[in-house]
């Protein structure tokens, strides 16, 4: 059985848990200074698992510190700063958190 690929599942988390998936973008398209909620991760098993260990799970709030379409993205999760490379930030789907509207 191939790791992380269960037939018929794209790996995007259930909307019930992560709140609304509308407006979901990849992290590479996120804007710096805003807070987002993780929707899910497309593709690669290893990436999903590594992100999960670091707490990047559907529903988790993250803050984008420095954005980048072409390069790595800096985020804060659980009080720690992470840099996610281009490949990973393209695969991580997030949606804007309502707290941004304040």
């Amino acid at each position, binding site marked *: 059985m191939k790791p992380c690929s269960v037939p018929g599942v794209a790996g995007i988390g259930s909307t019930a848990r992560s709140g609304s998936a509308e407006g979901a973008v990849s992290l590479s398209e996120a804007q710096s200074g805003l807070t987002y909620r993780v929707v899910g991760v497309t593709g690669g098993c290893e990436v999903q698992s590594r992100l999960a260990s670091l707490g990047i799970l559907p529903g988790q709030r993250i803050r984008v510190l*420095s954005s980048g379409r072409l390069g790595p993205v800096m985020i804060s999760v659980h009080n720690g700063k992470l840099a996610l490379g281009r490949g990973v930030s393209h695969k991580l789907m997030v949606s804007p958190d309502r707290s941004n509207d304040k």
Partner: protein
Amino acid sequence: MNGGVKMDGMVTVALAGNPNSGKTTIFNALTGARQHVGNYPGVTVDKVEGWSNVNGRRLAIVDLPGIYSLTAHSEEELVARNYLLDSAPQVVVDILDASNLERNLYLAVQLLELGIRPVLVLNMHDVAQRSGMVVDTAKLSGLLGVPVVKTIGHKKEGLDGLKEAIVGAATDTVPREPVRVFYGRDIEACLTELGEGLGQDAAFASRTRWFALKLLENDAQVIAAVRRVLGPEHALWDQVHKCRERLVGLYGDAPEILIADRRYGFISGLATETMTVGVEYRHDVSDHIDAVLTHPVLGLPIFLGLMYLAFWATFTLAEWPMKGLEAGMAWLGGSVAGLWPAGVDSPIKSLLVDGIIGGVGGVIVFLPNIVFLFLMISLLEDTGYMARAAFIMDRFMHKIGLHGKSFIPMVIGFGCSVPAIMATRILENRRDRLTTMMIIPLMSCGGRLPIYSLLIPAFFVERWQAPMLWLIYLIGVVSAVVVARVLRHTILRGESAGLVIELPPYRIPTVRGVVTHMWQRAWMYLRKAGTLILAISVILWALSSFPKPSPSRLAEYPDAEARQSAELRYSVVGRIGQFIEPAMRPLGFDWRISTALIGSVAAKEVLVAQMGIVLSIGEGEAESHVLREKLRDNYSSLTAFCLMLFCLMSAPCLATVAIMRKESGSWGWAGLQFAGLTAMAYMVTLVVYQVGSRLGAG
């Protein structure tokens, strides 16, 4: 697992924790200079052990690699996990960064699930307190059933409390119910079901829940282990598959995500009960520094500037001690040679002076380089800048198929391949690391510079000299990129790990930490690579010294240099040179160049000396215009260019081979690099020479 002190009183302790949690600082504080760095068998992960004395009890402490989790995804995690499972240390200490407790507790939860009762250490709690965080350690301890202590590692605060807790844990024999994360009805049902199947075998009976969890999480190593015991046809596999499908159907996520999620949920609950967090994210000094250092425009130039500085420090500062060591070795050689009356040519004298002392000298002379290099790397890592470097370079390196951090070892390769290959340790992913190691010799190293210095002025007019040098270096870099791509598409295929790196807060490194790290590396180099390089040097010396022509034949030659040339021709190396001449002719090389090339396997610089001998000029210096004239008389500029090309690409020196073997873990990679680069050099040079001579450049 926790309990019982060995009869001899020595307590085995393992230190676990996230990278950047200050674990190593605490390890250094506990063990001081009593440390030893070895290897975990079969993998290239350092095994760091140390010893400490607490109240008359001896502690044997292992500093496990920094990890975030106990999955099977990285070598470090597997090593740590296997160590905990197989070596069963009496006490496990989990060191947590108190400012980042939730993420750090993820590992603690997994330790608990393994049946371990770790001593939890809230390290750097001063920083946490400053940001407003308050932790009820007594409550946390009660809820998890484990001791909890607070420390500030780099200030040596709280260490006594930690030592007491360790000894206390070692003597604690009270059996307790392990703390369990409740995974929800569905997953728990699966765990029970799988647990029954697993419990029937003694190998898994003591930890059925953990093994069941791992099977659900699709853990490759556990799956393989269970398969070995139960076989691939066992009914269990069907159950696992059905469970996974059911869970996906119910929740829309792979079970490993669900499980990770529940663990974090558990932690969140713990946090609510035991912590009051300050402001969720504070802009602090590190952020201000990052605004500059990772600035979209300034970041790169600053990084390049720092790299230049590090490079300069490693090679220029090291030059003084290197010259000192060289002089020392020369003096030693001279003294030993002086034990024989002048003019006497004894094979034992040659063995001692040229073979052994020469060989040892070749090894030791690298030491200042290595020491300074690791000083630089330690500084970069301990301050936290290394992570930013990877962040900045990732954009470019990604395009080549390499990791952002690969840039640093590659730049070091312009000085010398040996420290550069050692520097690849900063890459965590094995594929990235191997790819980088394989292409480092193509970054034209300092050892080749004497060759270029000899040939370029001999064959090219002044106007073309600098561009020629640039051209050679450029060809090296371009071929490195090409080879990297080829490797990534063939034998080292696979998704590039994808940069996921923590950016720790900037810190002032401790002198002790930096020096300890540096010293460990230097010592490892001497012990492992040193012995191998010495052995090969002696062999090469023997092959170029024997057999010797008879004295009567030697007397035919007019002078000492001509005699030296004849001796070389007569020796094994000389004969090989003549033997391969037919194969080298299409490249524009004759037997003399071939012989010199074989000798240069010892070290690239040797080529110059060997060329001198073989052209009957003696081991003159590269500046010698006599040598240059002789070269011009005998060879064309096309041949000279081809020779430089060949030297650039072919067989790395034996020091590189030795370090490659050590760092890659097998002769296979070292051999592949040696053979592959030589084959590539041969073909490229062949094409260049043939095309060049057709075009009339020859």
